[in-house]
C-alpha cells in the first residue's frame, strides 16, 4: 500500500479506500470517527479515523490477562474473535487460521492446571517485522502489529520468526470477508487487536466478550498512560510476559501465571 501512513493507518480495508492517498484518508478519518462514502453501487469507501487520543503517538495499546480469572472451559474470547474477523474452525486445526487460542498449562511436577488465551503479543520489538522482506509486517506507533495485505507475498518467514505461533497462513480461497478485516489466500494474518474498533475508541472483541461472561479476565488499555487502569494494575501487581527472556517487550501481559 504505497503512501500508507503506518502510524495511523490500520491497513485493514480491502475497499478502494486503500487506493486513497494518506492525506485523503486522514482527512476522511479526521472528519468523523467512521466515514462511509458510496461512490457507486457496490463500491463503498469506509475510512477509520479516530481521535488523536485513541491512536495517538503516545499510546501503547496493550492487554492484561488475569490467568486466575480465565476459566478452562470458557472459549468466549476465541469465539468472539472468530465472529468479529470471520475466521473459523473448519475442523482442520493445522491449516485453519487461529488468531487467538486457549492454551492449557499443566505443571509437570504438581499437576496444577491453568488456562489462558494466547494471541499476537504485539511486541515492541517484533521478530515478524524484523524478518519480513517486503515490510508488509509492521508495527504502528501505538504498538499494534499488523500485516499490510498489499505487500505480503506469502513467504511465511514471519511465521518462522514469531515466538508465539500467533500467525496463520491462509491455505484456501476465502469468501464473505468482513470489510474492516480483509483476509486473503496466500497471505499471512494474525490478531490485529481489533484495530478498527480501537481507532474509534473501542475495545477489542475478545476483551468485550470476556467481560460479558462475567469472568473479566482481560483488560485493554494504554500502557503508556499512567492513569489508565491497565497501567495502574501493571504497576501495582506482578505481571509477566510470555518468553520475556527474548526481550521483545510484548504488549500483552499476564497476571498470576
Amino acid at each position, binding site marked *: 500500500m504505497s503512501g500508507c501512513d503506518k502510524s495511523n493507518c490500520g491497513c485493514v480495508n480491502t475497499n478502494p479506500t486503500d487506493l486513497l492517498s494518506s492525506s485523503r484518508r486522514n482527512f476522511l478519518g479526521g472528519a468523523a470517527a467512521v466515514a462511509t462514502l458510496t461512490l457507486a453501487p457496490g463500491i463503498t469507501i469506509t475510512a477509520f479515523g479516530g481521535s488523536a487520543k485513541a491512536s495517538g503517538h503516545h499510546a501503547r495499546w496493550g492487554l492484561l490477562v488475569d490467568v486466575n480469572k480465565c476459566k478452562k472451559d470458557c472459549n468466549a474470547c476465541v469465539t468472539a474473535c472468530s465472529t468479529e474477523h470471520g475466521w473459523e474452525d473448519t475442523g482442520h486445526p493445522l491449516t485453519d487460521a487461529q488468531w487467538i487460542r486457549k*492454551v492449557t498449562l499443566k505443571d509437570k511436577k504438581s499437576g496444577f492446571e491453568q488456562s489462558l488465551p494466547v494471541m499476537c503479543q504485539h511486541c515492541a520489538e517484533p521478530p515478524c517485522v524484523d524478518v519480513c522482506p517486503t515490510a508488509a509486517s509492521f508495527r504502528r506507533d501505538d504498538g499494534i502489529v499488523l500485516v499490510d495485505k498489499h505487500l505480503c507475498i*506469502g513467504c511465511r518467514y514471519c511465521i518462522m520468526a514469531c515466538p508465539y505461533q500467533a500467525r496463520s497462513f491462509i491455505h484456501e480461497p476465502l469468501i464473505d470477508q468482513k470489510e474492516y478485516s480483509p483476509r486473503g489466500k496466500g*497471505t499471512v494474518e494474525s490478531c490485529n487487536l481489533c484495530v478498527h474498533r480501537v481507532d474509534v475508541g473501542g475495545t477489542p472483541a475478545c476483551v468485550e466478550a470476556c467481560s460479558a461472561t462475567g469472568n473479566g479476565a482481560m483488560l485493554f488499555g494504554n500502557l503508556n498512560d499512567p492513569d489508565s487502569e491497565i497501567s495502574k494494575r501493571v504497576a501495582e501487581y506482578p505481571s509477566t510476559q510470555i518468553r520475556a527472556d527474548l526481550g521483545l517487550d510484548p504488549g500483552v501481559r499476564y497476571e498470576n501465571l
Partner: protein
Amino acid sequence: MKRIVYRELEGNVGVYGLILLMGAFVLAGAGSFYYMEHFGHIVTGMNNQIVWGLPHVFAIFLIVAASGALNVASIGSVFGKTAYKPMARMSGLLAVALLLGGLSVLVLDLGRPDRLIVAMTSYNFKSIFAWNILLYNGFMVIVGVYLYLQMERNVPKALLKSVGLFAFIWRLLLTTGTGSIFGWLIAREAYDSALMAPMFIAMSLSFGLAIFILVALTVNGLTNRPFGGALLARFGKLLAIFAAVVLYFTLAQHLTSLYATEHHTYERFILLDGGIYTQLFWFGHILIGNIAPIFLLLHPTMGKKRPAIVLSALMIIAGGFAQVYVIVIGGQAFPLMLFPGYEVQSSLMDGQIGQYAPSLPELMLGLGGVAIAIALTIVGMKVFKIVPKSLADSAVDPHHSAAK
C-alpha cells in the same frame, strides 16, 4: 599444457534426450505450481506448524549447492590451481543454473507469487530475506560478467582474476545470507545459532563439488570427451575434505547444544526420538552423506577410481538433501517452547511435534527446479563454448607427466 579448446556440446541423442527429459520435469513442475496457486497451499502437506516444506528443502539445497558449484572456478582463478582453470566456465554456468533452479522453486511456492515485483521494489533492510534477494541477483550478474570475460578474447588476466576474486567473496556472503535465514531465528530451538552461516558454507562446498563432478562426467560422457583420471582423483580428495568439514560443523553444533540442559529436549528429538528426522539425521546425513563417502574417497586404492568417486558424489548429494530436510522440516517440527516446564495443550497443537507429509505437487515442484538447473546447464553448454574438448590429464595439468 596444451592450449585449451572449448566447443559447444555436439547435438547427439544423449544431449537432446536429456534436455527433453528435463523439459518434461519442468512441465510437471509448472503444472504443480498452477495447481498449488489455484487451490492454495491446502493441497500441499504444509500447514501452520510446518510452513516451509519440501519445496523449501529443494530450493535451499539448490541455492546452497549453487554457490559451491562456483568453487571450481575460484580454485582456478583465485587460488591459482592451473588444472582447475579449464573448468571455470562450466563451474560458473552450473552455479547460475542451480541458483535459478532453486529460486524458481522458492518463488513459485510463495503464497502470492504474482507479487514478485513487490519483493523487488519494497525492501525491509533489517530482513536477511531482503538482503538475500540482492545477494542472489548480484550473484547472477557477477557470475554472468565473469563468464562473459572468460569467453571473450584478449581480456587482461589481472581483470579476470579480480572479477573471480569478487565472485568468490560474493558467494561467501551469499551462503552466509542463506545460513542466516535460519541462524537469525531467535525463537526456535533448532536455529538461533551463528554456526548456521559457516555450516551452510561447508555444505555448499561439499554439495556444489559433488554436483559439479557428476555434471562434468555426464556431459563428457555424453559427448565422448576425455576426463582425466588424475583430475578426478584430485576432485575426490577435495570432496572428502569438504564432507569432513560438514561433519565437523555438525559435531560442533550438536555438542554445544548437548552441553546446555535447556536444549536437551530438542537434541533428544533429533538424535533419538524424532522418528523420520532421527533416521534421516543418522542414516541420511551422517552415514550416507558424510562417513561412508569420506571412507570411500580416502581409501588408498578404491578412492582414486571413478566408480567410488561417482558413488561418493551421489551419496553426498543424497545425504546433503537429508541434512537440509532435517534442518528445515525437523527444525520446525520441534514445537516452540512458550511455557518451559509445563505440559501444554491447545487447538493449535501447542507443545506437539509438528505433522508433515510431503505431497506430490510439492515433490514435482522441487524436481522441476532441479530440472530447470540441469536443462539450463546443458542448453548453455550446447549454445556456448563452455566445455573443453578434452579434460584429459595431459591437457589440463602441465606437470601431469612429470608428477608420474
